[in-house]
């Protein structure tokens, strides 16, 4: 076994060697600018880009012409929200989104709100992290121009009922944007069946390179228009200017192709390892709580809160395993995970959460090692925890008057 073990595949993924191999010729040999229309270097680059566009489109059941390349999902989210708001301002300025969206969506809506450009409804989620489509329906007004709800949550892996939301959006004539960064390549995505009009995703979450992503923009029924946020040259049908990063795009395409071919086998394998990890940990440790939805979630995701111990100290005790925590101490804001808080998880349990993100290259041996290590460190830290001691003595921690600081 090689250390450290990488179990943080929601943050990023290692590149698949097959992706790297596909990219390599496009740095030195085939370095052309895809926008150069009058010589062989340009044609070669353009052809590579169009092949990748097809590979990417096929994975999400779109037309290649509906793929707009960006620098990543954050840019795609920005482009979708700002681009739609600017283009459809005559129609209205109301956006509906959810409380557990990624910061790339929430920070964007907050910034647009602060500028007075929009009013935003933040829908709550249920205890398992799901948006209720009925809430979406009820929130729509005659000023609503966009619904933005994510496919799969990056912390808890919960899958939203995207198809139902898409249906409501269509019925009401409102555009539907979906941040599918965590879902594309992991679970089947079909922009037609799901009724998605705009969709953000990126390459580095699916074993492709960092620095490239895409925004799917529907071409018909309805034809979606967005105002460009980066001008200069009119690349990507005028929606996103800038010289295309050909090697990255080639890698993105290859990554999508591999996902399409291997998704069924890979997701079955990941679910099996995840279930083994979950069962191994939760059977051994009392008062460990699953965050998110027990079944309707990403195959590689597991998020657990361990009562009486704090997340950052858990991570510190398992330095040879790369993980992430919802604890405030691991964030810059000193607030525990807003996603867990939106689920109604208590602050103290939000501080105690660990996110396990399994990926293509994890092995059963690594999972077994992780189970052993988690049990060991949680047990050790509970021995050290005054809260655990009090709970064992029968003190109701909620009845204690804490001196908050």
């Amino acid at each position: 076994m090689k250390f450290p073990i990488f179990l943080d595949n929601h943050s990023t993924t290692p590149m698949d060697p097959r992706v790297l191999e596909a990219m390599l010729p496009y740095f030195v040999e085939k370095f052309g600018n895809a926008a150069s229309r009058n010589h062989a270097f340009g044609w070669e680059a353009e052809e590579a880009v169009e092949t990748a566009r097809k590979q990417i489109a096929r994975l999400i059941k779109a037309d290649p012409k509906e793929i707009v390349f960006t620098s990543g999902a954050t840019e795609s989210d920005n482009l979708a929200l700002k681009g739609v708001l600017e283009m459809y301002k005559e129609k209205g300025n109301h956006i509906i989104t959810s409380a557990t969206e990624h910061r790339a969506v929430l920070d964007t809506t907050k910034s647009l709100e602060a500028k007075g450009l929009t009013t935003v409804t933040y829908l709550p989620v249920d205890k398992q992290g799901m948006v209720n489509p009925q809430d979406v329906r009820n929130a729509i007004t005659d000023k609503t121009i966009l619904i933005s709800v994510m496919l799969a949550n990056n912390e808890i892996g919960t899958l939203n009922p995207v198809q139902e939301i898409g249906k409501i959006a269509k019925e009401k004539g409102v555009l539907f944007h979906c941040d599918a960064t965590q879902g594309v390549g992991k679970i089947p995505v079909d922009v037609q069946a799901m009724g998605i009009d705009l969709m953000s995703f990126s390459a580095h979450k699916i074993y492709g390179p960092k620095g490239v992503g895409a925004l799917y923009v529907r071409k018909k029924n309805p034809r979606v228009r967005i105002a460009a946020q980066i001008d200069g040259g009119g690349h990507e049908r005028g929606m996103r200017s800038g010289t295309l990063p050909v090697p990255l795009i080639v890698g993105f395409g290859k990554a999508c192709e591999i996902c399409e071919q291997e998704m069924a086998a890979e997701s079955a394998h990941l679910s099996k390892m995840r279930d083994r990890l979950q069962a191994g940990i939760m059977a051994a440790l009392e008062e460990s709580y699953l965050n998110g939805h027990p079944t309707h979630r990403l195959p590689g995701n597991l998020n657990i809160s361990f009562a009486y111990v704090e997340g950052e100290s858990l991570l510190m005790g398992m330095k040879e395993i790369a993980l992430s925590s919802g604890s405030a101490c691991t964030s810059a804001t000193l607030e525990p995970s807003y996603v867990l808080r939106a689920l109604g998880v208590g602050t103290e349990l939000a501080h105690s959460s660990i996110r396990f993100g399994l990926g293509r290259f994890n092995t059963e041996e690594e999972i077994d090692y992780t189970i052993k290590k988690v049990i060991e460190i949680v047990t050790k830290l509970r021995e050290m925890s005054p809260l655990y001691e009090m709970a064992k003595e029968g003190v109701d921690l909620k009845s204690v008057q804490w001196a908050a600081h």
Partner: protein
Amino acid sequence: MAYSDKVVDHFNNPRNMGSFKKEEDGVGTGMVGAPECGDVMKLQIKVQNDTIVDAKFKTFGCGSAIASSSLATEWLKGKTLEEAQKIKNTDIVQELNLPPVKIHCSVLAEDAIKAALADYQKKAENK
């Protein structure tokens, strides 16, 4: 975030981790922090003839919080009550090389020391 070697050492090999019986003679207990804030420290001292002869801690919190309380118990042992009052959070920051975002851990440790001393005094006066 990178931890200093001293924080890592205290975290991996906590000094004086454990509890005294609260009602035991000569024991002062300080409990500070709150679970919602992500850290709770319990610090206890055992006093004989105005000198702290033993100290123990239990901490719910990040590695720096655990290290701060572990260090505090190490420093408290052998000190008189008066000397113990003088331990400052800045001393802990310096010794453990805590970054700015972790200064609150040292503040909590100082508060825990003060709370334990106050509890001991109160118990002694009520005797």
